[in-house]
């Protein structure tokens, strides 16, 4: 038995949470310190994961497996492949960044806040590591609880409304998943919840059954992504959540949906994947273009970035829909890239909001004169988001386009228009906030501080790194993506 690295990554934050709960309410700095340490350990472990992971094979690695509830066929089963390793790393990184960022802007109920944040990390890690449906579903639902409280207690604006909307919306989706899981469990002989076994057996089920269960899972995951028209929880939740939570929402939570498609829906129900390819592609196109158009109408900076996520997750769905190695690799690349870029953008919005207490794009102007470093960093990430070559977003968008063009000769050229609209709304925002004459009302603003720069630096380095030389990431996911495509299209 090797070192159980996946369990360690998943449960270290839980240990941290318990320790934080043991503190007294006044020990704010101790809570911060513990949260920092216990989110840093998974990050270190994730580096080990990256270095030990062998990308030449699609075999599961770091497997941990014990019987748990034998009478039901439930096992404690964790493992990682080219799909989950990048997600686990992203989770560890963004959670750490979120914790460090929260040192500054969370001043109320600090102890509870960090306890919830660490619990959230447990759920997220678990979702990406679990390979038994029972375990997966538990982690999937664990995520909801801390998220609900984090938005509802530490949020802004209509935070209760947003928290409830988020919770119910996702719960509504998970119910469909639960039905799907149960239907699968009782149909497959012998009854099992082992995902790897199901990936082998479920494709042999009847076509009609596959289509129905595919749809059930589709709803569950589409709410999470979110796919149009299930997307309206996203802007509310993202905007009203505290900064660090928005980072995790956009950076990781949305990826749970896409991950679900690639881990569960596509390999298990290839008939559904092939049958629904066109509608999924069309919805992806709507996400891309509609999301981008709606961005243009936003006056609130955070809301604009929230809607840009709707648009950018459309690229993921477009890449999946085509079922080609390049398209799906582009999708995973986009998940990582979007996590880095949008995560950073939310952090930077938080930096400004903390100082100016407004996010109204029109209220600023000429900030570059007063805040050159902040404006420069913000512009860099906006350029990343609009797909500038040399940065990661470009690589993923291009991979998605190239991968899905052979299947969708009309949809893809239409989706390319999203690239122009994205450029338009980002440049418009940059121009209105940072360029032009300086609005002297903001003379009091202070430049981005060291801690804040520290939080976005790793994200910037990675964004540039994989944008300039994508081979390491591509090689890591390649074998697994080939395997998924082989499972789906035979």
């Amino acid at each position: 038995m090797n070192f159980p690295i996946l369990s360690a990554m998943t449960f270290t934050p839980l240990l941290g949470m318990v320790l934080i709960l043991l503190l007294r309410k006044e020990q704010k700095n101790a809570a911060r310190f513990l949260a920092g340490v216990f989110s840093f350990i998974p990050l270190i472990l994730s580096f080990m994961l990256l270095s030990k992971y062998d990308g030449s094979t699609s075999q599961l690695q770091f497997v941990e497996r014990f019987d748990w509830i034998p009478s039901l066929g439930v096992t404690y089963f964790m493992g990682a492949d080219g799909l989950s390793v990048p997600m686990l790393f992203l989770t560890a990184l963004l959670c750490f960044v979120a914790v460090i960022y929260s040192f500054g802007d969370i001043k109320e109920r600090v102890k509870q806040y960090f306890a919830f944040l660490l619990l959230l990390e447990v759920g997220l890690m678990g979702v990406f590591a679990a390979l038994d449906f029972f375990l997966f579903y538990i982690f999937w639902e664990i995520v909801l609880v801390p998220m609900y409280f984090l938005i509802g207690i530490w949020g802004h604006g209509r935070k209760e409304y947003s928290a409830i909307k988020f919770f119910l919306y996702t719960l509504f989706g998970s119910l469909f998943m639960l039905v799907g899981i149960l239907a699968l469990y009782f149909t497959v002989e012998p009854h099992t919840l082992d995902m790897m076994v199901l990936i082998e057996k479920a494709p042999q089920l009847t076509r009609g059954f596959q289509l129905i269960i595919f749809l059930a899972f589709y709803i569950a995951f589409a709410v999470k992504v979110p796919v149009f028209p299930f997307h309206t929880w996203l802007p509310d939740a993202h905007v009203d959540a505290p900064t660090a939570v928005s980072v995790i929402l956009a950076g990781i939570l949305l990826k749970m949906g896409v991950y679900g498609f690639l881990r569960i829906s596509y390999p298990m129900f290839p008939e559904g994947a092939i049958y629904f390819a066109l509608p999924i592609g069309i919805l992806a196109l709507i996400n891309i273009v509609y999301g981008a158009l709606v961005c243009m109408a936003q006056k609130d900076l955070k809301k604009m970035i929230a809607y840009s996520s709707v648009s950018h997750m459309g690229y993921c769905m477009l890449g999946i829909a085509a079922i080609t190695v390049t398209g799906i690799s582009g999708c995973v690349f986009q998940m990582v890239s979007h996590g880095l870029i949008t995560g950073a953008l939310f952090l930077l919005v938080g930096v400004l909001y903390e100082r100016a207490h407004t996010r109204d794009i029109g209220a600023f102007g000429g900030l570059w004169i007063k805040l050159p470093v902040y404006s420069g960093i913000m512009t860099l990430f906006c350029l990343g988001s609009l797909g500038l070559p040399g940065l990661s977003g470009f690589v993923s968008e291009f991979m998605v386009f190239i991968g899905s063009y052979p299947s969708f000769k009309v949809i893809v050229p239409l989706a390319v228009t999203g690239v122009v609209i994205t450029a338009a709304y980002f440049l418009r925002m940059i121009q209105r906030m940072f360029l032009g004459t300086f609005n002297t009302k903001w003379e009091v603003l202070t430049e981005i501080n060291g801690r804040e720069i520290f939080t976005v630096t790793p994200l910037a380095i990675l964004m540039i790194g994989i944008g300039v030389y994508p081979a390491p990431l591509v090689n890591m996911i390649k074998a697994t993506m080939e395997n998924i495509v082989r499972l789906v299209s035979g």
Partner: protein
Amino acid sequence: MLPYSWIIPLFPLISFVAIVFFTNRKPKLSSLVSIGAICLSFLFSLIVLGMVLKNPVTSEFKFTWIDLLGLKVQMGMLIDPLAAVMLLVVSTVSMLVHIYSVGYMEGDPRFSRFFSFLSLFSFSMLGLVIANNFFEIFIFWELVGLTSYLLIGFWFEKKVAADAGKKAFITTRTGDLGFIIGILILTTAAGTFNFTEIFHQVEAGHVSAGLLTLSAIFLFGGAVGKSAQFPLHVWLPDAMEGPTPVSALIHAATMVAAGVYLVARTITIYLAAPDAALVVASIGCFTAFLAASIGLVQNDIKRVLAYSTISQLGYMIMVLGLGGMTAGIFHLYTHAFFKALLFLGAGSVIHAIHTNDIWEMGGLYPKMKTTAITFIIASLSISGIFPLSGFWSKDEILAVASHYPNPIFLIVGILVAGMTSFYMFRLCFVTFFGKPRDQHKFEHAHESPKVMTIPLMILAFLAVFAGWVGIPWLKHGFSSFVYHHHPHHVEPDFLLMLISTIVALSGIYLAYAMYYKKSISPEKLKEKFAFPYKVLYNKYYFDELYHAIIVNPLLRLCDRLFVKFDLGVIDWLVNAVGNFTVFLSDIKEWFDSHIVDGMVNGTAYVTRGVGSGLRKVQTGQVQTYAFVIFFGLVLIILFKLG
């Protein structure tokens, strides 16, 4: 050396990084770093050109960047005569502009930043010309677009400058839409991104004619955006809001020529798709005329030059569409020098009197002799006066056009030549001769410092002699170096040379008569042709048109989509479901509390009522029992008796 050509773009990249992270606070050092880097690039470009001249073969060097099923990209370099010439053009102009900028930008608070952007631009542009595949060329293509955006909006406090940068980026990206789609179509059909491999497949007929035409037209979209061809030409005149050295380097000599370079690089595709080539030629021809006609009446010195650039780029695009790859690149090469010179000269004037309006200039010749003389040399060159550079390249374009069956290209070509010499000498006469119109500005006018005038002189030298490498009598001239498959030898056509010279001289004479001798009154002409003048002066109302039919409706659509649809329909539905659920639970609560609970409580009430009633029966008190017995007995007795 050739395998190490990547070092040419690397120097400016290093300089960019160094300035951003280390020398940002030291303007002098920043400019030295930047100039040093570009000088090295220039030196190495010369060496590369020398080697390619000696041995004119195509060499390719590549490494794998992404390797996936269905997507294999090998980044690398393609060094052939075309690339070698472009390297030299870009590095030469860039180097001179760098030096000139030291004087022009002196005292600017963001001096270091300016040089870092120049370096970034040089890196991207040099990278663009040595790219060996579509993926790579697109990357650099976008990067030059970015630096163009950053430099147009360099003085971002001015709203017009910030607006112009945004407009440039978005307009060119609209063209890139076509570029991306073209790449998708072509590379999907050919199964590779590599230029050489794609061209082989195209020539072997492995790509169907329909797809080829389609992809060629879409690819051309990218060139239309970048090279500011109709209908996407509107960004370039606005781009003049950037500092003048930037206009010279990016928006005259190099970046805007990237579209021309793209078509030349992929000329194989256009030769195999004659319909697409005809589209290219027609757009180029139309743009050449359109822009030249607007240039006739503009009053901003830089905008006249901008329209001139658009028009000249149209020339190049046209001749490429007609299959004259050599002629197109030859004109690109000569144009880079004389147009950069014109802009730098204009910059020198603006630097001296702080205005762009030619009607506030006048009589500057005695005060700024070097600027004036070099500017006039460049004007003669662009007008195509024997024996300056422009004469040879323009003549070659006309010669190619004259071989095309339809004479329209030749006629428009000659017409544009006449218009060009007119508007150029209109500038010369109004700016440098006559009486000073603004006495105050005139008195403060002075010749620019040496650091600015020396680049002007070098460029003037090139504007005269650079074209001599393409004199048609030369055995081993330009046309036997840069060509597609077979050296393209145009026989010198003396009649054509004569006609074009006469046309050019008439343009100059007309300008002389109107703006120097004043024997023809421009005011009267203006009154006589009031309507055409107004249309030209307002640039055919393209900006207004685009705003009315694209920009504003799009913004309205976005607003409507968000407010009416996203909030009004989808979110309304979500909330409606939520509220309906709450309503249902309210009903249920009422039902619970009134009916269900009512029944439960009712049962309890009844039970309790009954219980408490019955309790009275069994109180356990003897007196009560005795009373009841007694009372019962009385009742029985009364009953019996009754």
